[in-house]
């Protein structure tokens, strides 16, 4: 027995979640991130673990890790000097993209500058066709000339993305061979290797994002592996992935495209686990940090998946846990426009200078400052933010809020509450779009709130959305790290077939799935060296003929094997009906992509139940809080004092190491056996 450690690196803090298999205890820990020296925070955290909890590196038997190093490389544009090879006459693929602009009402709206400038895109003659046949042979001399051109512009790496390579990658493979021979050691990656999907822009931009960051990520993972070995951690680190799973760090060095959104994804995985433990079927997960709120839909305890999630300015078309990011968080700044109307965001104080109450130089009022002014945060004895790294400066918060209270002609606390309400109504707007997109009703769902500012805002958000129940996990500040700790080993596989769903095509479809299964098992058993139980999920991207979008439809393995067309079609009709509320049972169906997900389940930590409460929960002190236009008395409780079965009513404040829960009147809290704090709207 030993310890399992999950680590998630965010912009401000690095979160640790530790499960001690001997005692069954779950510890959390936050240390400041060191973006300038990635990896150092991991070592700092390991030292802290030993000091605080006596956990030594050599006791760590399982180590998972999520990092933003890839995303930050894109956002800060600090990737390698990358070049792109495309099919001749299609070199503008990144410039043209899909034509659509971010804000169609603005004549000045523009696409972000591509990661590879057009001057570093080189044309390769040769042509594959849709059916995989070769129309014109690859011009190998042109490839060699392009390598010279790459050298001339100081290129540090190449992405090759040729038309129809998802169907027949022979030309891309040959380009890689030629480059390897002509320029040994020069980094090159082909679009079919990253994610072989039809649609040239989507495949190319995905490969470009991957290529742009890969050498940086690989270097980081290498340093991390070395640092962990030196620290004495024996097990190979596992890296969290955008699909909510994990893979070995070694695999991450070449498959980094799959780990770019791992932080948000593992937060949702953590939220799903919380939902299951709290016996919640359908939920919205709400992860609020300093600058953004990430919302995801959990149905039947499972996350939803999608493609096209944004990495900085660019969409990446790799299966990813679907998360909607709202540009509003604890650090969002309030201001008053020229017409006297109060606005919140989109500007954020971020982590530097941060809210005024952090006393780091921020002077403009943020949502967090509003909570200080309203008395929810900053009570003398309540635990500060970030394990004592932050001390609340209440006066600074008041001064900041005063700057908008004056023009609004309101009291300072009145203005603070107005800020919260306006900010929450902005979140309501974005969540409304999300639930309308899914066709779901939030009133029938629970809100799983986490992140540094999630529990602070949860009651306000729930009230605005008419949600009746909120679940706040035991360690809301480190749920992404917790999610990594319990994640499965998981990978996605895809093959484009573009076939009508009919008997004559079933052999091709079966062969395709057989090939994907072989690939998947190879990945799990050999590359990941995982020997435990594995699950294979078969699905296909399907559509009615004439439609331009596909639905990923889960298929029965037996139906595929038996060529049961009726069952495969029924699965699609059912999914179409569920998503769009109609199906056309007579229309011909096309199968565009075959897909397979392989899941290996490592043993999961088994958390012992929380001890039963023996007496009523006693508040540690009382504060005055401002809500609904008046001051009220509210109790402050400590999370660590809570036992299963404890109940109390709002208004109240729950303080814990990694965040503060602000509970409004009209909510009643109970503590469940898993240690979740469950807030239910009364009446």
């Amino acid at each position, binding site marked *: 027995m030993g310890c399992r450690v999950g680590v998630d690196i965010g912009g401000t803090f690095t979160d640790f979640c530790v499960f001690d298999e001997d005692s069954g205890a779950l510890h959390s820990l936050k240390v400041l991130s060191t973006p300038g020296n990635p990896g150092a925070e991991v070592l700092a955290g390991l030292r802290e673990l030993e000091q605080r909890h006596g956990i030594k590196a050599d006791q760590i038997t399982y180590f998972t890790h999520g990092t933003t190093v890839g995303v930050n490389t894109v956002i800060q544009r600090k990737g390698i000097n990358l070049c792109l090879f495309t099919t001749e006459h*299609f*070199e503008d693929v990144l*410039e043209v993209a899909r*034509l659509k602009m971010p*804000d169609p*009402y603005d004549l000045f709206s523009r696409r972000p500058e591509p990661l590879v400038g057009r001057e570093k895109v080189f044309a390769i003659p040769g042509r594959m066709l849709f059916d995989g046949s070769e129309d014109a042979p690859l011009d190998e001399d042109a490839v060699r000339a392009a390598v010279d051109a790459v050298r001339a512009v100081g290129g540090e790496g190449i992405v090759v993305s040729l038309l129809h390579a998802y169907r027949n990658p022979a030309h891309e493979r040959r380009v890689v061979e030629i480059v390897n021979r002509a320029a040994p050691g020069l980094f090159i990656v082909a679009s079919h290797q990253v994610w072989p999907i*039809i649609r040239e822009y989507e495949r190319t931009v995905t490969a470009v994002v991957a290529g742009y960051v890969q050498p940086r990520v690989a270097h980081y993972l290498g340093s991390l592996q070395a640092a962990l070995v030196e620290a004495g951690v024996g097990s190979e680190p596992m890296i969290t992935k955008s699909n909510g799973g994990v893979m070995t760090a070694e695999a991450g060095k070449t498959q980094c495209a799959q780990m770019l959104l791992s932080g948000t994804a593992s937060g949702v995985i953590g939220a799903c686990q919380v939902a299951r433990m709290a016996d919640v079927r359908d939920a919205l997960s709400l992860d609020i940090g300093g600058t953004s709120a990430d919302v995801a839909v959990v149905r039947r305890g499972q996350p939803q998946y999608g493609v096209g999630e944004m990495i900085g300015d660019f969409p990446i078309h790799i299966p990813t846990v679907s998360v909607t990011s709202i540009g509003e968080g604890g650090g969002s700044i309030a201001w008053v426009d020229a017409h006297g109307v109060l606005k919140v965001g989109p500007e954020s104080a971020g982590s530097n200078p941060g809210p005024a109450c952090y006393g780091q130089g921020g002077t403009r009022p943020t949502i967090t400052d509003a909570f200080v002014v309203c008395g929810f945060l900053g009570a003398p004895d309540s635990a500060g933010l970030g394990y004592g790294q932050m001390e609340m400066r209440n006066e600074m918060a008041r001064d900041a809020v005063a700057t908008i209270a004056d023009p609004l002609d309101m009291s300072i606390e009145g203005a603070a509450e107005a800020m919260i309400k306006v900010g929450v109504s902005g979140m309501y*707007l974005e969540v409304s779009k999300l639930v309308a997109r899914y066709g779901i009703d939030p009133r029938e769902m629970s809100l799983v709130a986490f992140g540094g500012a999630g529990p602070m805002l949860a009651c306000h958000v729930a009230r605005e959305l008419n949600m009746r129940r909120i679940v706040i996990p035991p360690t809301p500040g480190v749920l992404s790290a917790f999610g990594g700790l319990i994640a499965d080993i998981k990978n996605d596989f895809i093959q484009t077939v573009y076939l009508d769903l009919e008997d004559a095509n079933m052999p091709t479809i079966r062969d395709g799935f057989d090939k994907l299964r072989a690939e998947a098992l190879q990945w799990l058993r050999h590359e990941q060296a995982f020997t435990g139980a594995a699950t294979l999920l078969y699905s296909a991207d399907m559509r009615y003929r004439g439609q331009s979008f596909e639905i990923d439809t889960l298929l029965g393995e037996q139906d595929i094997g038996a060529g049961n067309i009726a069952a495969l079609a029924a699965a699609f009709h059912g999914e179409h009906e569920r998503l769009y509320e*109609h199906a056309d049972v007579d229309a011909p169906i096309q199968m565009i992509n075959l897909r397979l997900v392989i899941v290996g389940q490592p043993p999961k930590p088994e958390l012992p139940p929380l001890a039963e409460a023996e007496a009523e929960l006693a508040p540690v002190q009382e504060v005055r809080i401002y809500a609904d236009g008046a001051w009220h008395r509210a109790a402050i409780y400590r999370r660590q004092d809570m036992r299963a079965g404890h109940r109390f009513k709002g208004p109240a404040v729950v303080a814990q190491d990694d965040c503060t829960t602000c509970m409004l009147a009209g909510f009643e809290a109970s503590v469940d056996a898993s240690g979740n704090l469950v807030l239910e709207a009364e009446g």
Partner: protein
Amino acid sequence: MAIDSVTLEILKNHCRAAAESMAFTLYRTAHSTFVKETEDFTTGLTTPDGETFATPTDLGATWFVGLNYKNVIELIDHYDEGDICLTNDPYSGYVCTHSPDMHIWKPVFHQGEIVCFVVGHIHNTDVGGAVPASLSRTLSEVHQEGIRIPPAKIMERGVMNEDVMSIMLANVRMPEQNWGDLKAQIAAMNTGERRVHEMIAKFGVETFREGTAALLDYAEQQARAIVRALPDGRFFFADYMDEDVANGYPCRIALDVTIEGDGLVFDFTGSDPQIEGSVNIPTGGEVRHALIMVGLVYVLYSLDTSLFLNSGVSRVCRCILPSGTIVNPEFPAAVGLRTLSVQRLQEIIFGAFVQAAPDRLPASPASGGPIMNVNAIDNKTGRRVVASIDPITGGAGGDPFADGTEGSGANSSFMKNTPVEINEAEVPIRILRYGLLPDSGGPGLHRGGLATVLEFRAEAPNTRVTARNRDRTRFTSWGVRGGRAGTPSIFLLNPGAEGEVNLGNTDILTIGPGDEMRVASGGAGGWGNPFERKPDAVLLDVQRGFVSQASAKRDYGVVITNGAIDQAATAEARARGSGEASNAFYDYGAGREEFELLWTRGNYAALTELLQALPVHWRFFVKHRVFETVEALDETELRGDGSEIRAVFADVLKNYPQLRLPA
């Protein structure tokens, strides 16, 4: 404002959430691929008077922000709870603007009183009529553009009106799609209604009523503040479509914008008579018609993107739209392809405003590229394929701050293309090239955005190609403040081959296996003097293949030798080039300059005045006779002051004793 500003902002977010939820519901449940692909639909919430106070901005068409439902609401004499009304008649109340657009509205009641309407439209792929998809520029009467349903209740007290439904479905080519999309619209209305009830429960009905009125006032105040920051004055601008009908004469839209304090007047006197084709813009002469307001909304929002978009914005403006002209045609003029004229109209509004704010607004965006459709039998499957292969867009105009965006942008920003790989999988064509067209952007300190170019080869016999909204082969996108015009659009059959054909503005043709087509939009206009563009930026354009070495030298005075700037030669070329540069505010391009040697502003003023005095059904006819005759005039007879037009007009009329001028 009676309501406090904090509640207003919160209510605003809730109203927008309602409008966005309606849009997402419609988008999610719509049946037709057309709606899903083009997002040609709207949703919104209006006051009981029909003023739209909230619209979605994430999804849907960008054209209908200021749409006012008042006229159609009033055409139904009584509403009960559970009623839903619809119309697709462009001549019943001027809310619907061409027959494929099915507009729908539902009253929302609270304690027996209407508190607002939830509204929206969807573009149906087909509503019957003379041609599939109901749109063609050869049509001249609205009757040919499909069935028209005047405002009617499709649901009465929650019960479907099967009579209206069956008449509609009997007259369209793909009734299941129209029916499916109508269901999605109804679902969106019901979503909106539910959201309004939730808002009333949260805010109270009085706050809701006051708040929705205040949201209109708020948008108006914002818009007025933007207008107030512009200088007072009169700003004239006119531009042309290449042809009013196939192989016809240019069609002019003229606009005089008056800015006075925080208000605007748009006077369209001088615009061409209504057309015996389908590019007429049906406005009914409304002082604030949504189709006219599109360009204004773009301008105001671009000047300040915090502008809340609703009908309140258009309150700053009043329009004068002479009856019987392209901007206010009389029944039963066809209006199906007003898309093309409305796009030109937007550019004309941009052209007038850029005089008022030359340091804050861009040059003309590119246009003239078509929506390309291919109809052919797939050799592999033997099935007929009808597919929209791509909208051929072009870039944004150069602006005071940067180059125009390449390939798309500005008022075409909502367009989406189809991937090459999908087209080749679905349609029996081979794509030979898709990308940006070098040297197409108007040179400038900030260059105009490049056109997109598509080249493809047909693989099947009898491949029918439609290229809707072709234009700008002659009149190009204008540059401003020394920036140059963009290049003309291109439509060629078998380019570079023996039998190359310049197809001009042809919008439909049949080609066979092996035939190749090249199609490109026009380029966008440039902003500022190209000879002051940083040489490094010109060099980068050359390295990127956006500008040729020859153009760099000719248009920018930057001489590039062996991949580097030749400093001495550049200094010399720039000195020479700057001397030759024109000081004109606009650069219209060669096609328009040549046309306006004959058709001066004075001549157009005379023509407008003379045609205005004729009965409407004679105007277009006489315009053509005048153009024919004027073309034959000797250069020495041209004075440009209108006198030659008066003379020609009098001659023309002599041939038509049937025409009786009103006394």
